[in-house]
């Protein structure tokens, strides 16, 4: 207790005298950056998820071939989740004699739980948002169905045994599938009418869907509960499963944000370590004196521990408050980009910020602090008596533990974390070695420079350990920042490039072989930009390596679906730049007609396949045996025809199939109506709404990435401040002596500028090298294309010289103003 009181007094006194300002400031900024990132990631992450969830019309979907069991609904209600029911089936819809196969979607009140329905009075026009669903007795056909049936508002459509009146045309719904499994047009009816249609008969293919929405914790509870239930032939889906494009964008954004906040943590950690070192250096005399005056080692330790803990607590509270205010401000600034109903940030980031601050403080500051307690009291008589040197292990272990914990906590993936740590360790070693070599060689060039520069360079060489430490700290900070900057650019460019404004907005399916050329011509005459046209054959997988599917167990959740569903198959000779072979080889002209197959990696993962596996497909009653020749990574967000399963040309050419393509067309109902009229057999899908949805998600992810990067920059500035402050005390003394010897302020400032600019340049060169390597690796980890960046080198070297030089100059300016007398006497 006495130690706490002493610590409180010491803290108050040191605070008042300004002694603690730098350590306190860097801690506070560290926590502010940490929790600010945390708050923002929390809120924006939420928003991205919410927006992404619109694609599912829910946060979670439970799909089943049998009616959803009552206990599932009960569990969802018990957990406080919002829920709605959706039942879908294919059925012929009649308007008088005209009929069309359509996807009947019976929905209950509340649908959609995420996203919105838009409706209109006529087909193929832009719709307005509605919060309601069709009332009992009503039917909302989509544009295509209404056009095909010649139905309008007021028409009576027969759905099974029930006749329903058209009251709206459905323009868009959030869960328009992006994987193009459903080719039929769609309609919405009220759940209450389903029984009366008598469509639910034994043997009819019906999918029952329970839509759920709520907080992440509730959803997790539901998932856990669901996994605990045995023998349910159901599929639980979230957005990553349902929409690969959005899944990709939000996964990458989440990983980038995690990396960005991790970099902020590491920068702050280095800043804290440097502040703690100078804190300890400044306190050596005080501790020696306290010991002379009778303080025991335990008391010294306790007082200092308390002091640090109190400091951390105060900095955490203020930092968290600052972080919270900053994200509040950022959300305001980003208004328009971010949706208005951004969910509020939870308290967790503040708690996590405090815990991480403590962990970092313990890892980075504790070894120095323990060192402080070992200062001999003799130091009061002999200035050179210091604490025994800290053993490498004692210093390294807490640091390593803290870093490993923080890295794993942020990245959450063991292998990624290990690689990151290895990269980090390699960077520190390389920076240290290169820094030492450069400091040594700097000593040789000083003869040719002017007096100020000579003194500056000499300083660099003389304060060897300090200089190398500073090079490592600046270099590491700069390297992380630069790597992150490259990555941010790559990410944003990649996202934007993946969805240019002229990305195909229409898909055309069921194009018969004989009208293929005409159709293509017609599209071109409408001014459409066409993509490739691929054949489309329906087929079913029968065996894998001669074992029937029913005997097999599949690793991926989607495996059973892939295995049992009828697939769309295609053949092609060209790979296309939206496909990348990750294993095996794409076929050559010589492979035409050979029994080979190329599969998308999603297919590979779900079914647990490897190169050389033999697959048997049933295509139109005929069986084909093929060998897996390659696996492809498909950019689904290219919005061009893409297939999980592709064959070489010449193998399936005989199987009568249709073609599909996609194109960008200026949205105008006239052109579409003409196409529908001339090619009634061709199914047309408008994916414009889906594109708009995905663009909104990506914009959000981009703004999140940009703002989080700001915090990381702030953390970098903290580090700069701490590193420059680290040698301030020593400089104070030296400057006084130099001035006594007749050096002008100008000469001293120039020498400081020289020293820091050189330090910055060395750190900049090393950082740019490391960042190029690190950026390439990170781009690989995030599935991005790495682009060499010359600007990086300019920014790294020139920027570092300027920023570090100016920071050093500013901090030393005040040192030069101090009268030599007050330092020397």
């Amino acid at each position: 207790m006495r130690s706490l009181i002493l610590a409180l007094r010491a803290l108050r006194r040191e605070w008042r005298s300004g002694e603690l300002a730098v350590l306190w400031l860097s801690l506070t900024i560290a926590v502010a950056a940490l929790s600010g990132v945390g708050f923002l990631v929390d809120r924006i992450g939420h928003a991205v998820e919410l927006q992404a969830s619109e694609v599912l019309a829910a946060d979670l979907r439970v799909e089943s071939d049998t009616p959803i069991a009552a206990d599932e609904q009960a569990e969802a209600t018990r957990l406080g989740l919002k829920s709605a029911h959706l039942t879908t089936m294919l059925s012929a819809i009649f308007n008088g004699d005209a009929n069309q196969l359509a996807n009947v979607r019976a929905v209950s009140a509340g649908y959609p739980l995420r996203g919105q329905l838009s409706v209109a009075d006529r087909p193929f026009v832009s719709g307005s948002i509605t919060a309601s669903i069709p009332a009992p007795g009503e039917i909302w056909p989509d544009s295509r169905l209404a056009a095909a049936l010649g139905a309008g508002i007021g028409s009576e459509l027969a759905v099974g045994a029930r006749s329903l009146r058209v009251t709206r045309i459905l323009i868009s719904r959030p869960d328009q599938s992006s994987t193009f499994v459903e080719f039929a047009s769609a309609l919405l009816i009220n759940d209450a009418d389903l029984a009366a249609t008598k469509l639910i008969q034994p043997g009819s293919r019906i999918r029952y869907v329970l839509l759920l929405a709520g907080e992440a914790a509730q959803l997790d509870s539901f998932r856990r509960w669901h996994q605990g239930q045995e023998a349910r032939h159901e599929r639980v889906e979230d957005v990553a499963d349902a929409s690969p494009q959005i899944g990709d964008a939000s996964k990458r954004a989440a990983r980038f944000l995690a990396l960005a906040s991790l970099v902020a943590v590491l920068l702050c950690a280095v800043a804290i370590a440097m502040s703690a070192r100078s804190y300890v250096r400044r306190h050596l005399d005080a501790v020696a004196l306290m010991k002379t005056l009778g303080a025991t080692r335990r008391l010294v330790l306790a007082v200092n521990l308390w002091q640090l803990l109190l400091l951390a607590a105060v900095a955490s509270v203020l930092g968290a408050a600052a972080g919270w205010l900053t994200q509040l401000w950022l959300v305001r600034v980003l208004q328009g980009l971010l949706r208005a109903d951004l969910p509020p940030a939870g308290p967790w980031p503040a708690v996590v910020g405090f815990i991480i601050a403590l962990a970092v403080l313990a890892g980075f500051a504790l070894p120095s602090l323990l060192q402080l307690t070992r200062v001999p009291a003799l130091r009061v008589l002999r200035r050179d008596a210091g604490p025994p040197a800290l053993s490498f292990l004692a210093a390294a272990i807490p640091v390593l533990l803290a870093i490993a914990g923080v890295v794993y906590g942020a990245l959450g993936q063991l292998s990624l974390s290990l690689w990151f740590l290895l990269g980090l360790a390699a960077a520190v070693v390389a920076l240290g070695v290169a820094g030492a070599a450069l400091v040594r060689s700097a000593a040789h060039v000083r003869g040719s420079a002017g007096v100020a520069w000579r003194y500056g360079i000499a300083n660099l060489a003389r304060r060897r350990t300090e200089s190398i430490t500073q090079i490592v700290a600046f270099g590491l900070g700069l390297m992380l920042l630069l790597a992150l900057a490259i990555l941010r650019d790559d990410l944003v460019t990649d996202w934007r490039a993946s969805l240019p404004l002229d990305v195909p907005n229409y898909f055309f399916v069921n194009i018969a072989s004989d009208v293929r050329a005409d159709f293509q011509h017609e599209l071109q005459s409408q001014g459409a930009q066409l993509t490739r046209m691929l054949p489309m054959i329906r087929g079913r997988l029968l065996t894998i390596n001669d074992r029937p599917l029913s005997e097999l167990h599949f690793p991926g959740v989607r495996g059973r679906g892939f295995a049992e569903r009828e697939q769309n198959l295609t053949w092609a000779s060209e790979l296309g730049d939206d496909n990348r072979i990750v294993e095996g080889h794409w076929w050559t002209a010589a492979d035409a007609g050979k029994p080979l197959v190329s599969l998308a990696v999603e297919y590979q993962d779900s079914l647990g396949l490897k190169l050389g596996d033999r697959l048997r497909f049933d295509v139109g009653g005929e069986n084909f045996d093929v060998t897996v020749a390659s696996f492809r990574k498909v950019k689904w967000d290219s919005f061009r025809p893409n297939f999980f399963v592709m064959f070489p040309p010449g193998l399936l050419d005989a199987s009568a199939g249709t073609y599909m393509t996609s194109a960008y067309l200026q949205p105008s109902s006239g052109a579409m109506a003409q196409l529908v009229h001339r090619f009634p057999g061709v199914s047309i899908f408008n994916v414009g709404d889906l594109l708009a949805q995905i663009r909104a998600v990506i914009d959000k992810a981009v703004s999140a990435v940009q703002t989080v990067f700001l915090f990381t920059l702030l953390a970098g500035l903290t580090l700069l401040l701490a590193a420059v402050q680290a040698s301030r005390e020593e400089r104070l003394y030296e400057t006084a002596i130099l001035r006594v010897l007749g050096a002008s302020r100008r000469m001293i400032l120039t020498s400081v500028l020289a020293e820091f600019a050189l330090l910055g340049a060395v750190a900049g060169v090393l950082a740019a090298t490391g960042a190029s390597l690190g950026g390439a690796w990170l781009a690989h980890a995030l599935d991005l294309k790495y682009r060499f960046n010359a600007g990086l080198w300019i920014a790294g070297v020139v920027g570092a010289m300027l920023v570090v030089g100016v920071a050093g100059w500013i901090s030393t300016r005040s040192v030069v103003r101090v009268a030599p007398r007050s330092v020397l006497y």
Partner: protein
Amino acid sequence: MTRDIVLEARNLSKQVSSPEGPLTIVRNVSFTVTQGESIALVGPSGAGKSTLLAMLAGLELPSSGDVVLAGQALGALDEDGRARLRAERVGFVFQSFHLLPSLTALENVMLPLELAGREDARAAATDMLGRVGLGARARHYPRQLSGGEQQRVALARASVGHPTVLFADEPTGNLDTATGERIAQLLFELNRGSDTTLLLVTHEAALAARCDRVLSMDAGALLRDVAGAAAHTHA
């Protein structure tokens, strides 16, 4: 009147290793000091005075021999034990004052009392500052005080706990003659007023001469142990 022995050096030696082999800094030094005595330790630079002072105060352990301070053999105590003994029985004044720059004059004086857990730290320190003539400067920081004032604060800090022994290492070394004289006067007043034993290391013959005894050292050995006035005539 027989007075108690408060400090005893028994065959103290200190050796350190150097590039040229072991170096003896203090060699077989023995003497005793009684309650209330004032002792000056003199000798040329490198004579081993500061090392001897450090060993006497328990800041450093001898290579051989022992120190008995206030009845306690320092060799039998660990570092914390010696620190506790210093807290109760010892005061210190240094050549370079060693005031904590972040504390005010008053807080510097309060520090040893606070370390000892004394409730009346503030009152006692205020009183002590008044006695050294700095009552009006209590809230000033060391950098706002002159050298002489800083040393008076240090003196107040050393005396506030009523130590049995007050060690002073060149207490006037950093001060001009007049200020040094005032500090010396204060030092001896406190020594006599509270019956504190004073052991000071000094280069100044005049200061040494005011002490009851003068111990002269050279090359680590104790050469002479004479009365203060006698030392003056010898010098």
